[in-house]
């Protein structure tokens, strides 16, 4: 009889705790979602400062089984495409890491921002530390080194990617997520251009209303004519 009483008391405490947690969760849920949405928008704006709209793209999924694309945005500035932004998550040292990877039309990384990372404080978490430099002389952060990096590079830690000290697993996993997202984005953009050019070549023979695929529909991949590459590729690692 006494044991039953104890059980009932424990159950009471547990249910009170559950109820208060449920209430707090319900109250804070909207606010938390709004905060993460604001954060995502600011990160997108940071990567593509000229962008005006971010359109959700549905038909791009990750080729890797353990890396997921949570959201893909087509970045445009007044209908002129600037590139793609992919919110990708994959395994890292302390569970899943979520990154926002921006890919521009020059087949290079426009920028990388961390959405969520739970690695060791002081070691792996230095990936998100704005004052931790992998290149102390040039003051380049771990994520900063990817900016302007061309996807033709291998993205291999200790070859063309500088690792975070004592956090090789984090460095490798993040580089892999960025590479996967970048490659998928390039493949997607290539496909878009192909489809756009096929539309142009339709043997309708009528007036050529169709503009060159640069401006309206597709991505001007490989069309290097006149497009001076503002971004100089970084010297690959130096090692």
């Amino acid at each position: 009889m006494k044991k039953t009483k104890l059980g009932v008391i424990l159950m009471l405490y547990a249910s009170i705790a559950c109820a208060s947690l449920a209430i707090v969760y319900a109250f804070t849920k909207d606010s938390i979602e709004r905060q993460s949405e604001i954060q995502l928008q600011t990160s997108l704006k940071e990567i593509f400062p000229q962008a005006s709209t971010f359109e959700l793209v549905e038909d791009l999924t990750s080729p890797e089984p353990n890396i997921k694309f949570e959201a893909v945005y087509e970045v445009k500035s007044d209908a002129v495409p600037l590139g793609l932004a992919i919110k990708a998550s994959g395994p890292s040292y302390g569970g899943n890491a979520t990154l926002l990877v921006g890919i521009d039309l020059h087949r290079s990384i426009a920028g990388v921002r961390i959405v969520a990372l739970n690695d060791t404080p002081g070691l792996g978490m230095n990936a998100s530390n704005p004052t931790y430099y992998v290149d102390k002389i040039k003051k380049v952060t771990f994520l900063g080194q990817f900016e302007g990096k061309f996807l033709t590079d291998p993205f291999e830690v200790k070859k063309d990617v500088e690792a975070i000290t004592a956090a090789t697993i984090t460095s490798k996993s993040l580089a892999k997520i960025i590479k996967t997202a970048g490659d998928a984005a390039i493949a997607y953009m290539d496909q878009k251009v192909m489809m756009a050019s096929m539309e142009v070549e339709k043997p309708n023979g009528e007036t050529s209303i169709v503009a060159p695929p640069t401006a309206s529909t597709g991505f001007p991949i490989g069309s290097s004519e006149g497009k001076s590459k503002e971004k100089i590729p970084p010297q690959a690692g130096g090692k």
Partner: protein
Amino acid sequence: MKKLYSIFKQGIIFDNPLLMLMIGLCSAIAVTTNVSNGIGMGLAMTFVLLFSEIIISLFRKLIPSMIRIPIFIIVIAAFTTIVDLVMKAYFPDLSKSMGVFIPLIVVNCIIMGRVEAFASKQDLLSVIADALGMGLGYTWVLVGLAAIRELLGNGTFAGIQVMPASYEPILFFILPPGGFFVFSLFISLNIWLKKKMEAAARRKELVSKKEAA
């Protein structure tokens, strides 16, 4: 008032949770790689400790002693989750810089230890004094550990470069072995301090006895 002050003082040197009671070590070694982490973890821990102790102390007569441990765990875990959610919702910047420490607090045995050893038997005011003292004792050790490890292992203090550029950081101090090394130095320092203070107190007692006689 004097009683409250002596309770508060206990946690800083004599019963320091890290250096004397030796509890909550894993998170202490893990986060003390830079000073701002140390301050963040110290404050978050003090906050949760204070409120968990208050709640347990208020309910202490309603908790049957046979099932006290599961009830403590429920209260601590629920409270930590509430803090986490509220911080995420209303203080996103704070939550971003301290987010990693909140889950570490749940498994921090200082809270469990103090709740079991102190809060479940004492009244509200003593409990508040104890939580603040323990929190301060925990925080100063974290900040001290982190300052030495960051300075020697990274050449910085709270993220600001202080060592000259020619200084080659000793990586050993940032890694766990260095953490244990600095930690053991702190333990010996604390024992030395404690002995000094005890000797001083004894001398004072003798003097007052002589005067009385």
